[in-house]
């Protein structure tokens, strides 16, 4: 069975916690998981991955977290062929701000533009809702599993 890569971009650590939760949910169903922070190296390895889950928050004027910028820029500059990659997308945001959850949409657009295929719905957690991101992460990961190619 192939490994599911769980790749996160974070500034305050919330997306990393969600990545941990998704990994736990997937492991509970017998999948192998690898967690990594979005980086230049991850961008270089992406073309060899078959299954990935992207988790990111939104900062500033709707940007990706600062730490994920090198990943995003490398992706745009190198334009790897991602036609072998299926991915799930989980965004974290705060509806207090207009740019609520722009970050994950930016990332989805880039990945799709390089040939990657999204599976499942994009999860968008709203911190202002008071619901726990961990709860949404677990239930969303469970629905994703049904869509994962065997």
């Amino acid at each position, binding site marked *: 069975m192939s490994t599911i890569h769980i790749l996160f971009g974070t500034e*305050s650590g919330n997306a990393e916690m969600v990545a941990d939760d998704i990994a736990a949910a997937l492991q509970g169903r017998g999948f192998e998981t690898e967690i990594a922070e979005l980086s230049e190296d991850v961008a270089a390895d992406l073309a060899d991955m078959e299954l990935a889950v992207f988790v990111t928050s939104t900062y500033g004027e709707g940007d990706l977290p600062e730490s994920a910028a090198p990943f995003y820029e490398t992706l745009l500059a190198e334009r790897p062929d991602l036609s072998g990659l299926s991915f799930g997308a989980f965004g974290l945001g705060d509806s207090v*701000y207009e740019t609520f959850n722009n970050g994950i949409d930016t990332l989805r657009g880039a990945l799709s533009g390089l040939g990657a295929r999204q599976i499942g719905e994009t999860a968008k957690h709203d911190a202002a809702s008071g619901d*726990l991101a961990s709860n949404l992460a677990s239930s969303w990961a469970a629905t994703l599993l049904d869509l994962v190619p065997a």
Partner: protein
Amino acid sequence: MTPTRLPTAPPQTGFRRPPRVAIIGAGPSGCFTAQALRKRIANIQITVFDALPTPYGLIRHGIAPDHQGAKAVQRQFDRLFARDGVRFVGNTLIPGDLPCAQLTEAFDAVVLATGLARDRGLGVAQDEQARVIGAGALLRLLNSDPDSPLRHTAEGVPELGREIAIVGTGNVAVDVARLLTKSAAELASSDIDDHALHALIPHGIATIHVIGRSDRESAKWEHSMLKELASVQSVALRFDGEPFDAASNPAGKSIRIDVRFRQTTQSITTMRDKTLLTTCEEGDPSKPSQFLVDAVISAIGFQDDSPLSHELDAPHIFRVGGCASGRLGNLAENRKLAAAAAQTIAEYLARDDRAVPVDDDIDHLFPARHVTFDGWRRIEEAETLRARPQRCRTKFTTRDELLAAAQPVTDRLAINA
């Protein structure tokens, strides 16, 4: 500082008991440091102390009460205490309840994460009768911090009046302006201290002058924060006389927020029963401006007033966050600083030649009335259960209430009987 600490017997690579680390201050810097240390050293034993009965510092008492989403970062730390074996010891003032020497002798490393507790003063001549209030103290009051200085004045919570000036153009200034101008409906699902807010502005606000030293481009506030302020229903926001955006048309708006840039504060005096703030443009006294207001709020940063900052110094004592950097950054910045500090601490703990504590028991160090993480959970539950309509919780505002709520229910019954 370390008279009874013994160097490790001959440098060796064999078994050593898990390192024991004390973190003083359960705010974001202390908690991010605990989290980062645990990631690096799986079996580390961490105790996080706080002078208050409650953890989370500025997450609970600094982040604005209408920004509950930002406060959700505490869920990461709940996990640290509830699942990952990090211990919370609240209601424990160091050195008052636990002398520094005992602490530094009992732990392999001690991390100061005490933040910056005081508002920085305006640094100009100031009439004693003038009403000048720190933005940090104000936010702590509206966030129900039992120790906010504004709760403990002779006259009670001071009334701000209808015309105020805020000195400073950072996010804290925006938080204050927004909280004082939002309607009751706009504060729905916050946990603002309604009594305190009413005591501050019983007749509402008419005008806020925001006075900044920098120019418009270099002001520190974030644009997303300004957009949020401009969208407050009754607010017309103007920058040097120009509307901030189309939504800031003054028609039908009852509150004016006028921002003035490049203003250096010159003096604070009084005129009749009002406070007079005098500024000049870019420090040029020939271009003065005067603002006659009911109160001036200083929002130009914070400073340290912890005695620990001077008292503690040894190779196994580390500092992180505000008390190390001299400024209170946002959560993301402090998370980065905490990761860097954790790396330094982990390298120290890995050294063979460092001193190790002799005493193996630390429980006897904790004061009898300390609050555990379970105690905090009971406080949190009680505050949620007693939430007023339109509020996500209603916090306790005194240490006595917090300590009572921290007691297990069986003990509370016993006390009542």
